[in-house]
């Protein structure tokens, strides 16, 4: 599971208000650099919840080999024109954190209820039990 995907997932357990963002507990990570497509990244960026992305990076960075690049503390990604002015180095950094790091094994934890959703072979299992509906 990429951090880009993580950015869109939420917990659906009964009693949650937002269920977002999901905390990440890492058991195994995979990092593999892929070709950077600037146009694609700029198209995607406005849809990303940046604070959630940054907190996710902080949660997993120390578990990653090599260490994930630092991304800016504050970035208004919804500003499409502002995104156009981003320097190439930042674009690459964003690409690396959004697309090149995968959570292979671990858990996603609901911030409201503490419910842990397992991630196995990169696939999070978000199925709810009957009493969570």
């Amino acid at each position: 599971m990429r951090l880009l995907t993580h950015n869109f997932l939420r917990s659906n357990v009964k009693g949650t208000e937002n269920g977002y963002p999901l905390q990440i507990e890492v058991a195994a990570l995979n990092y593999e650099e892929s070709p950077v497509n600037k146009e694609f990244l700029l198209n995607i960026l406005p849809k990303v919840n940046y604070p959630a992305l940054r907190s996710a990076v902080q949660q997993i960075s120390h578990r990653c080999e090599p260490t994930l690049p630092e991304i800016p503390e504050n970035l208004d990604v919804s500003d499409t024109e502002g995104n156009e002015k981003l320097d190439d180095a930042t674009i690459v950094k964003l690409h690396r954190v959004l697309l090149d790091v995968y959570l292979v094994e671990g858990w996603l934890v609901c911030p409201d209820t503490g419910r842990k959703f397992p991630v196995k072979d990169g696939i999070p299992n978000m199925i709810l039990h009957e009493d969570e509906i």
Partner: protein
Amino acid sequence: MTTTPANNTSSYRTLFPHEPLPPTSALHLQGAFVPKRSSDPSATTSSPLATKCRCSSPTYIERTISTRLQQIMIRFGMNAASIETVEAISTAEEDVSKVRITLRSSLETRRFVDRWKRRGLCPMDILCHDDGGGGCCGECGARYGGRPIQITHVSPVAVPEDGLTNEEEDSIRWGRAAPPKFQRIINGDVEDMEQRRSVARFVYLENVSGWGVAIESTDTTTHVDEMRQCILSILNGDALPLEKLMNEKCNNNSNAYDDVNKFGSNGLVASDVQDDIHQAFQEGFRHSISLCPSLASTSLGVELFMKTDTKQKKNKTKNGLTDGSNHLYNHFHVGMRSHEDAARLIQDWQGKQLELTIDLPTSFVSLFRDKDNYIAHEDATLLDLSTSTRAIITMNKLFLDYADISLPKRVRTRLSPEAQTPGLPSRSECTSTTSHIYIPGLHLLPNYVSSDEEQVLLAVLTGPEAPWAPPQYTPSGGQIKRRVQHYGYVFDYESADVLRRDVNTNVGVDNTGIDASCCPPLPAVNWKSLDKAKEVDDLEEWIAQHVAERRGWEVLAGVIERTRRMAFSSYFEIYELKKRDGLNFDEQTAALSLNNEDSSMVEPRSHNHNHTISVQEGNEYQIESMVEPDQGTDESLKCGSSTKGTYSHINQLTVNEYAPGQGIGSHVDTESAFDDGLLIITLNGGIVMEFRKVGEDTKKLVYLPPRSLILLSGDARYRWEHMIVSRTTDTVEGEVIPRTLRVSLTLRTALTVPLEGEQAVPLSRFESTIFPPYWGQPSDTQPVVDVNTSAIIERTDLITPVTESKHVHAVYDAIATQWHHTRGKRGVLWPGATQFLENLPPGSIVADVGCGDGKYFSAILGANSYVIGTDISEALLRTASSTEKSDGNKAKAVNGPQYQRLSDEKLALSAFPAVAVADCIHLPIRSGSCDAAICIAVMHHLSTVGRRIRCLTELARVVKVGGLINVQAWALEQEGDSKRKFNGSDLLVPFNAQPKYLQASLAKTDDGASNYDSAADGKGVAQMISESYDGAEFDSKKNLVIFQRYCHLYRRGELEELVAQIPCLELIESAYEKGNHVVLLRVCGADMS
């Protein structure tokens, strides 16, 4: 010892081994006891015939045999003093061929006979003088023969008692050489079995083995414990311990009797002792039967049929094959003197643990003495006869049943020649249609439902939506095997009554505490279910429209209503007239429609107006004067609600499924429970129904063809029993018709329990227009049910129904690999969906809800968008991400042609597509985060309206305002050339799964998959898998597992109706594409939290 000459042999008969021992019996030795003069001429001259040698005199023979018998008996371990008489029987001088010997007791005699038989002695062995040499008479030199002496156990023929008259009849059935073969009466025609059981005098006994043995002995010199062990092993069919014991005790002594060895015997052998035990056991068993109260048979009259072939047994034990099924005592048969006795024995002993006391034979007991006290057989006379040793044997709980003799064929023909008449079908009786049969009040209407109606009804009644009640019990405690479901009111088979309840109060909203009387309501006609713009008030038109739309429950409601309106009396009068007049009655006219304005109309209207029945000119029938033969009784029996031959108060429906081989016992429907008029509609498979006049033997067979309706009224309802014989074929007009599944609809009018002096009236109708019907559903006699207002999402809708978990989720998990290989990889995408994806602005985030193996991922990534796919099946999702991540070329090869046009960076994305396991009605995606969503081939797997709405609501929630959603689902309306044609909107669609793929799927999802790997021994993988999945079947011919996928097929406009209930969704476009309905939706401004 006295010898009495007598020539009369006719007053004796042979005793069979199974027969009880009479108080007196004898044994006959038959052979050439008078030696033959040598044919050598020299011998003839030296001893002329004139000089009689004493060796041919009866007295001499008697004396010699007596002496030798005593020696032999000692050798046999018997008491030599028990010989009472030896009597040579000669028809003429010098022709003694038979010797009759009487022993003190019959038991002794039987033992002696058995032992003798085992050795096969001949006259040379017993008559030859020791000094004679060479088998000759020492004086005259005549030679004794070497042919064995025949020995038979005989009894004086007594004056036959009354109870013994069966004997002769039975002895015809089996010769003395061949003991009869028995079979329990459990196979065959029901009636035939009943008939045979009601006369059987033979009883089958099982579970006799499983012994507890205790020994009671007054002889203090024996080792009781060893004896106990030995008896146990003998009773379990293992003679080895006994043989061992015999060898130890007897070997030293046998050599001293060389002269006896020439008898061909080795003294007393183990099987002799074993036989003694068997004999003693049989005596003990007979005795305990005689203790059974109120039996007419005494222990003398009871025949006992046990396997007595110990030889075979011995061989088996020597090979170490002691198999429990071969125990001599495992089961045997008892012949009682009469059926009444047999019935009493079964009643008295069934399930009892019997205790048998048997007197142990001295031959056995003496084996257990100390070496010092052991008395060898030659000294058997010295045994202390005053001591007695008994074994008390405790049996298992007995099982008893009637049995009869399976007759050899030739005997059967001799006994009942009429049963063997050639040319008649043996399996089922020949049946004609009603045209040749008249039962007052019985009427059959062929083609009562059209074949289109039948298809639609079958689809819904055998489909996943149909409720089926758990099996009910009959009064006798048996379980009803066929599937049965009641609507409106429950008929309880155990009490044979309708379970009446106040339909207004028992509205089971909480369906956890379902009581026995609770059942789904009767389907009712909802006039407004059709297009509101066009009011339809003609029932047939209403039905036809619902048939066209494949709305099975509505069609069922329509057929029930049609039956209520049917004016049977007028119809049948004409039908009868036509038939009796010999006119060619066209069956098409039977499919007549009704006239809802005038039920008293004499002339029913037909669908096909060419076939209207009318009173013919010049051949006028006087309808009014038509009187049915039993009309008087008809009228007197009717309760009043069904006058004029209409049954307008029908309030109960029973759906029965008769699989081939299933039937129903002979019965008259409970009179107090149902009014006159039982209407039975037959669907899919025809069947022969048997009618039997109550209290009489009259039997009539009626074939009920598919789509027919049969009415039982008047006598046919009250005075004739009806039944369906359990078998797999019927014979109709000489043609054998294999049965297929028959679905029958029985329509009845359930009655109230009347107050005193009042008449029973029909119970009020408990019916509903909300479909599918379910338990605890409130009755809805208010005719208006608008789908648009009834759709509220209940909490129960959020929990996965069994239909889906069993017939959707489990199936896709199992077939994931095959699905991906055979469908996903082909890359066949719906053009409409592809176009939708390509038209999205670049960089769109697309939710693919129910993405399966991700066959649209390439199209989404190719359009420069990002996809988040979810699916309930983890197995399918794994096939989506199974691409080799590092090798782009491999990715292309593995995941199919659609990936070939992706650039490298897209391939990187597709290598690990963003997927999550999730339910489409609980999406784990944050609200408003996606630019678009697709939901393809998912909605048709949701089984309730609430869940379908919830799915659309979730799609609307995750997509931002203004975003687009593309939904596709399977259409009820298939294209003309499609191989699929659907008769109902909810059904199970089979998926043929190949075992090789199944194994791969299991290996990926299930850690316990190794179980299947080792399945090579014995069962195949496919069979094992089909057994482990509830609802999957195994096709042994093709080695396939057939899974059933639940599908709801959407009618034209149905998706739009659902969308209309969600305020924030706006319908942009509807389309039909290759058997699917497609809707394009836009999320509008309404707040969806």
